Structure formats: structure tokens, C-alpha cells
């Protein structure tokens, strides 16, 4: 926005594009920020001015621009984002972008959501194992599914679902000998469930080892798997209620 643009035109532009503030620039130099807030504050200040205030140029309503560099720590700009609703990225003579609280929230959501989905998935898997097996049955499934991996260190075999690593869920739930216990909970077939579990394990490793950013399809896979587990848990809960009623 040029400094000579009228406040009315600036507000029209902001409404049209859904912005709440705009940098005002002369040449390559950022002079300040025009925003709904700066306009309201300026209106109070200029209330004795004759004529329509919205026809004044935007540089009458500027608030100072606060800059952060692309390399700055995100946490350092939180207070600016809180009080000013935006931070300019770059320098006064080299504006590279504008960050808003929503941009930060979207970014943090994007990087945090795989961890949340994985946490929910893992908790759902544990809950399902608890629902499907007694303690004795669990120990038997662990012995059958993981015995080979724990040869010569049997004392370290997991004693509760919470002690299983993600890769071990597939071995415990989908080994030939323990499948019958899980079939009534999960339905489908052993191979199909295995084929669903293994990619989740790979996605988990990719996320936790920061190997790559997940794609949209990866997200869909994670969410669909988590939802499937939650659906199975609801079915189990309903069955348990029916049994209690009977």
C-alpha cells in the first residue's frame, strides 16, 4: 500500500482480501502498518480534523512496524503477535513477508498434528489390547509373538501393552497363534490388518526421526487408521454394555 492511498481505499482492499492490516511502503522502504486498530486509534487522535477522516492518506494512521528476521526464534515474537496481531519478516528496506498469529497457529498445528494422531493411535491400540485380552492371554501373545526377538532375555518381555514398541503391536496382534484373540475385535483378516499396521509404523518412524514431512495422503492414512481403531473400540464398548445388560 502506498502512503498516499486513502484510508477508505485501504479498508476496501483489506475487506476484499480478508486482511486485518497492510504494510505501507514507499519504494522498498516499509514506513509502518495500517490496520483496523491503527485507523480506530488515529480517528480518535484526529477527531478535531475537518472533513472525512477516511479520505485522509494511510500514512496519517500508521503504527510502527516491528520486524523479525527469518532466523529469529519463534517464541521471541509471541508477545509482538499478541499485542500487534502481526510481525513483519525481513528488514524495513527488505520486506519478505508478514506473519500473523493464525500463520503461527497453522504452522504449529501442521508440525504437531502427526504426533497427536500417533499418540491417539497408540493409545487406541493399547486400549484395544486391554479389551481383547486378559493379563494371562496378553503374556501368552507376547511370548508367542515376541519370543524370538527376546531370545536369551525373556525377563525383559513386555508385561503390559504400555511396554510394547509400535513395531511390536503388529507382532503381538497379528502372529498366527494370537490372531484368533484379535479377530473378534478387529474383524477383517490377519494379513489385511498387518498391511494396515505396518505402514503406520513406518509413518511413525518417519515422524519421530524427522526423516520427512508427511504428505496429505500420509495424514489421511493416519487419520483413517486412528478412526478405524476408535470405531472398533466403540463396537467393543457397545458389546460390553449389551453383555452387562443381559
Amino acid at each position: 500500500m502506498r502512503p498516499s492511498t486513502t484510508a477508505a481505499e485501504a479498508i476496501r482492499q483489506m475487506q476484499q482480501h480478508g486482511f486485518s492490516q497492510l504494510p505501507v511502503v514507499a519504494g522498498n522502504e516499509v514506513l509502518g502498518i495500517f490496520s483496523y486498530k491503527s485507523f480506530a486509534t488515529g480517528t480518535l487522535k484526529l477527531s478535531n480534523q475537518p472533513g472525512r477522516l477516511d479520505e485522509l492518506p494511510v500514512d496519517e494512521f500508521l503504527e510502527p512496524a516491528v520486524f523479525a528476521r527469518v532466523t529469529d526464534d519463534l517464541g521471541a515474537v509471541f508477545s509482538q503477535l499478541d499485542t500487534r496481531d502481526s510481525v513483519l519478516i525481513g528488514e524495513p528496506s527488505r520486506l519478505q513477508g508478514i506473519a500473523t498469529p493464525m500463520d503461527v497457529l497453522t504452522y504449529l498445528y501442521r508440525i504437531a498434528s502427526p504426533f497427536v494422531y500417533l499418540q491417539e493411535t497408540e493409545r487406541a491400540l493399547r486400549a484395544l489390547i486391554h479389551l481383547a485380552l486378559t493379563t494371562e492371554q496378553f503374556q501368552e501373545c507376547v511370548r508367542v509373538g515376541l519370543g524370538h526377538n527376546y531370545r536369551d532375555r525373556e525377563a525383559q518381555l513386555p508385561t503390559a501393552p504400555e511396554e510394547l514398541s509400535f513395531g511390536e503391536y503388529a507382532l503381538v496382534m497379528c502372529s498366527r497363534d494370537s490372531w484368533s484373540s484379535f479377530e473378534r475385535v478387529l474383524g477383517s483378516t490377519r494379513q489385511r490388518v498387518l498391511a494396515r499396521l505396518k505402514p503406520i509404523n513406518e509413518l511413525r518412524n518417519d515422524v519421530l526421526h524427522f526423516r520427512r514431512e508427511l504428505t496429505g495422503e500420509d495424514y489421511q492414512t493416519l487419520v483413517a487408521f486412528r478412526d478405524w481403531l476408535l470405531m472398533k473400540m466403540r463396537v467393543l464398548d457397545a458389546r460390553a454394555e449389551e453383555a452387562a445388560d443381559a
Partner: protein
Amino acid sequence: MPDLTGELRAAGLMPHQADFLTRFLAVDAPRYQQLTAPPGLGKTRLVGWLVRELVVAENRALIIAPRFLVEQVAARCREEAPGTRVVVLTKPIFRELVSSVPVGEAPWPAGAVFIASLQFVNESDVRQAILQAEWGLLVVDDEHELLGRSGAIVKDLVTRGKVARALFLSGGEDATHIPWLGSDVRETRWTYSLMDWEGRPLVLPTLRRRKIIDYERGADEQACVAKLLGFITSVRSQGNPVSEILASATLSAASSSTSALEQTLLRRRSRLTHQEPDASWMDLSLAGEDVSSGSKLPGAWSDLEAIAELIECLDSVKTDGKSAALVSLLTSLKSRAMTRVCVFTQFLSTANYLAEAVEEAGLPVLLSWGGLPLEDRISLTATLAKEGGIFITTEAASPGLEEARVSIGINYDLPRSLRLMDQRWARLYRLGDHRPITMYAMRDVSRSIGEENKVLQQFGFIPDN
């Protein structure tokens, strides 16, 4: 340009590639060229050579390729043009480029080639920066995409005179008519009847054998398919373009495997549960279609209960005649010392499932899909070439497979188009190979899904009735 031809021959290029390059590089060559060629005839290598010849210190190149091919094209450019900086564009790399130049300047250093997908170059900031620069060479792989809305960036580059030379590649039968290219354009078409330097055919159609493997869906599977078909019929009766796309995709998944169908329905269910926008709607929109009537899915596709019922029905399916037939075929091939076999599928969920089923039968499995890093896919192909095995792959992961010289391909499901089928054939050929290749397809004798037989006819696996 005899010297160049000799150099190209010595470098292992075939006559059609050398001829195209010399004509492309001729002083009086048209500014824009369209090359139509089925897969497997060496288009990507050609692009590498164009980069080598045309990208010099004072200019730059932009290559727009399908997303799953971007890394492969980059690898080829690095190989053929070792002195050139090859950059696969991602958002962080783009940001770094932008912040390394003064405000308002184009962020593309000279002497480099930039490779990205059409989706990426259409992101508003990237698009704006691309239109700022002058490009010595522009290559667009899959020119048919250019006629949609997402192709407008290429139109803008051409009509604003930002491109010195351009090559538009197509895997289809004919070059797409692109009105805004004007008259300074030449079309070249390669077919499988090309010759090598000694005048021998490069690809012998008679060495392509097609075979059918019959199987039968179990009663439980047939019951679920019948239920699904009833659902699809109600979807199709709505006459909504988005519903139709989803219906076709769902039938295609059902035709592949129970796993693929389960995954499709589970995703649909999740989207409905979380009220997420529909991907098919967005794809259509990007392609320039008017989707205003399809922005809200009416009726069946929004029927969470019906979809949950279908998922429940699939949970009860315990048989799988198709995968049993596959395992039986693979076992038989192994007993006949056929050690390198490639199984193609459209669906990652089918690939994962088959890997389990085949491994359980004691057969060595190599599983490749588009999400694997390129180096891992190359390493899997090398293992296949060296040690043999059952290479299960999705469409996106199969480029480069031709290096393993596999002579048996199995279409566990059939691809969506003749072009993709050609690509599967091409994965089994190396240019100049004269080995017989056998391609199998699976046929359900219970004919639960009527469309399957039509597709088998379309791809030449069974004769037209």
C-alpha cells in the same frame, strides 16, 4: 551437426534421440517443439541432454513434471549434465532462493535447472517469481495438463515471451493442440517401430505376450461387492460429477483388492466425520472444471451410516481368491526358475497387503512405492537385478525398473488408462531389448464387477466379443 550425432551415439543415445536433439538444437529450429512418444523410448534422457546442451552460464531452465517423476527427472539431469546445478523445488528451497536476492528480483540463479510439479509452480508466490524471469529452456512433461486452469502459467510464460526454447512432452497418441503456441512449433512423434543404429527394431511387438490368470471371488466377497454395487448405483443416479469420480475410484479400488476398498471407504468415512473438503472436488477445480454444482456432495456419498455398513461388511470377508491365485502363479513361476517378477498395482494398500500375502508364502518380496526416497527405490531395483525376487510396486514407484530386466509383469489390477498400461510395459523394457516379455492380468470368473471384463478387452488381454 555430425559431431554432435557422433557424440550422442558414443554416449549411448539411440538414433531417434540423436536426431531429435540435433534438430532441436539447430540454429533454425522452431522455438517450441512437441514430442509425442509412448513410455520407454527415452524421453527423460533426452531432457537431460537438452539441459546439458542449453543450460549455460547466462540462462536457466524450468522443467515441469508430474510429481512422482520430479526426483527421477532430477537424477537424470544430474547424470547427463554433471556441470549444471539441478534444483528440485520445495517450499523451503524456494524461500531460501527468494531471500538470497534483493527484493523484487527474480530468485532464479543462472546456470541452473529448476524442477517442480505443476501443482507447485501454481502456488501463487512461486508462480509470480517464475513469471518474473527469462527462461532459456522450458520443458513440460505431460502437455495435456496445459489445457486446464493449472496450465495457465505455461501459457503466460509463452505468450509473454519469457521462454527462449520449449519442449512439450506427451505420452499420448497425438500431440495436444495448444492454440497459444502459435505457428513457430514443430511436432515429432515416436512410436514403438523405431530402429537402433544397426537398423534393427528397438521394440518388437511380437515379443509382448499377454496371459490371463483366472480366479474366483469367494461368496463372502461377492456378497460385499454386490452391496457396494447397489451403493454405487445410487451414487451414479445423482448425476453429480464429483460423485461420479468417487464412484469410479471406489469401483477401481474394489477391483484391486479388499484392502484397497477398505482403505478408500475408511478415508471417505474419516472425511465425512471430520467434515473435510473433498479431494476430488479440489482436483476438478484445479483442472479448470466448473464444480459449483459438486461442491456439496448430495445423498449417498454423505451417508455415513451406509459407508460404515460397507466397512463392516468388508470386515466379515475372510477369503481372497485373487491373492491366492497370485501366490499360486508366483510359486509356479519360481519353480520354473523365473526369478524376477514384477507385480503392478494402482494402490499402496493393495501393495502392502500383497507384500504380506506373498511373504507369508515364503517368497522373497521387494516392496516399492512412490513415497520411498528415490535412492531407496534405486536400491530395491538393484537388489531385484542382482538377487531376483517379487517386486511389488505402485505406478508411482516403478520408473527406473527397466534397469532390472524383468521379463514377467503381473497386473494385479489394471491401470486407469492405456497410457499407464503402456508405462507398465515400458518398465519391463530397456531401449533396444529383444527379450520376450510376458504380462499377466487377473480375471474374476465370477464376474462380480461387470466393468472388469471391458477393461481387460480394452488392454488386449481378452478378445472383443
